[in-house]
């Protein structure tokens, strides 16, 4: 009868697993009850339980006659070998994005760049705390507010904390509506939050919409070649959307394709949530640093908008700057909500969407830049 008790004995030897079940339970609770990024947090939460059951065959290494587990296999093929999953997800994201609001007002692009400040400030803080350069950069990229970018950078830089970084990146993306409003209010005055912006709803020529993804790919490829895999996939997805002759492919990329990749990515990430690697004091520090990165991203975007106001005739509502972080489209919605709270007739959504989509491009470029700068030093 010993075989019936084997699992219980293993748990008694390694009670850390129970802590991971609790973490998995919390992720599932947040996904279902609080509707926080359910498409990712639910598979990750369930995966956290699945991989932390004693003798779980899903994480078998395949070495020394051991069975190769399905999650190990998915991780090795889909993430470790080629980072295919996060990259393919970018095709879907690109197909979902309408760059029209950004093309109507291209200077909003600057806000997307400024809202990446948190990434670099967090790298410095993580380095001061004592993380090696590759880990510090991987932690900093949580501030990209973009799960696939965080996964790609952490994997390419061979970070020791891929699991915590993935979980923290997706969890904080879900927490944008809680984190950002407080920071936005702290950085702006009531008068600034009430600034009205004219929205010139001129239609963007189709040719411009088609050329834009190609322009972005070529320019970022020339300056930051390492960002090409991310930016290229994002822009390929967008070209599918805008070309006008691949309607069904574009729709598939936006819906079925994205859903399949998200589903697989969520459960595959759980490979990195094995108790031994996940439960450490460093995970708690990474959580704190992730929050720091999000806060400084928001500060960077808002302050840049204020700075732009010093030089431009048409004032920008600084709240728009906060949408420069890439969490798309949540950050834009948060800006609209905060703006409406100050002045119910002041709609900032279209401007915020412009800054938000620019943040999506900027975060992918920064991801590539970080890989390019740091990989040779690792």
């Amino acid at each position, binding site marked *: 009868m010993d075989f019936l008790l084997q699992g219980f004995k293993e748990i008694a030897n390694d009670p850390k697993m129970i802590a991971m079940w609790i973490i998995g339970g919390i992720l599932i609770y947040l996904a279902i009850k609080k509707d926080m990024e359910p498409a990712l947090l639910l598979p990750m939460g369930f995966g956290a339980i699945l991989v932390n059951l004693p003798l779980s065959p899903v994480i078998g290494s395949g070495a020394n006659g051991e069975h190769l587990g399905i999650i190990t296999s998915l991780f090795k093929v889909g993430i470790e070998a080629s980072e295919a999953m996060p990259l393919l997800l970018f095709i879907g994201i690109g197909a979902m994005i309408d760059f029209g609001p950004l093309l109507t007002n291209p200077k909003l*692009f600057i806000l*997307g760049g400024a809202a990446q400040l948190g990434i670099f400030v967090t790298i*410095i803080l993580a380095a001061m705390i*004592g993380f090696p350069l590759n880990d510090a950069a991987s932690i900093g990229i949580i501030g990209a507010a973009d799960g696939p970018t965080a996964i790609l950078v952490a994997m390419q830089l061979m970070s020791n904390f891929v699991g915590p970084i993935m979980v923290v990146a997706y969890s904080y993306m879900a927490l944008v509506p809680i984190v950002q409003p407080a920071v936005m209010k702290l950085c702006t005055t009531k008068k600034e939050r009430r600034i009205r912006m004219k929205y010139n709803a001129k239609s963007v020529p189709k*040719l411009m919409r088609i050329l834009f993804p190609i322009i972005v790919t070529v320019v970022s490829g020339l300056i930051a070649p390492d960002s090409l895999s991310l930016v290229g996939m994002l822009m390929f997805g967008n070209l599918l959307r805008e070309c006008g002759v691949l309607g069904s492919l574009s729709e598939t990329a936006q819906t079925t394709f994205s859903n399949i990749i998200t589903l697989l990515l969520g459960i595959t990430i759980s490979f990195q949530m094995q108790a031994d690697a996940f439960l450490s004091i460093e995970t708690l520090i990474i959580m704190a640093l992730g929050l720091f990165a999000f806060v400084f991203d928001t500060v960077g975007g808002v302050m840049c908008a204020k700075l732009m106001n010093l030089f431009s005739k048409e004032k920008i509502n600084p709240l728009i700057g906060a949408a420069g972080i890439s969490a798309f489209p949540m950050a834009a919605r948060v800006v609209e909500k905060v703006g409406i709270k100050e002045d119910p007739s002041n709609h900032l959504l279209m401007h915020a969407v412009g800054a938000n989509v*620019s943040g999506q491009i900027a975060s992918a470029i920064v991801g590539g830049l*970080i890989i390019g700068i740091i990989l040779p*030093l690792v």
Partner: protein
Amino acid sequence: MLNTLLSVFKNLDPMNWNTIKHALTFLWQGLLAIFVTIALIIIVVKLTALCIDKAQKFSKERQERIDAAKAEAIAKAEQENTQAE
């Protein structure tokens, strides 16, 4: 004191000046690179938009000229017909 506090984290090497120096370099290098990229994208986008706008205007003007010439020809033909009658 910070070193002592942070040494509880066994895998970390706090206040390693070499790492911090690298991180500080990334700050300016990264921000410079991202803003240069963005500036270039804005310039190319604005130039492209300008070219598309000019091309559309030119094409519209040409079409208007063609239409006007056609209308003029039709009017002339009608006038000639009327005179012949």
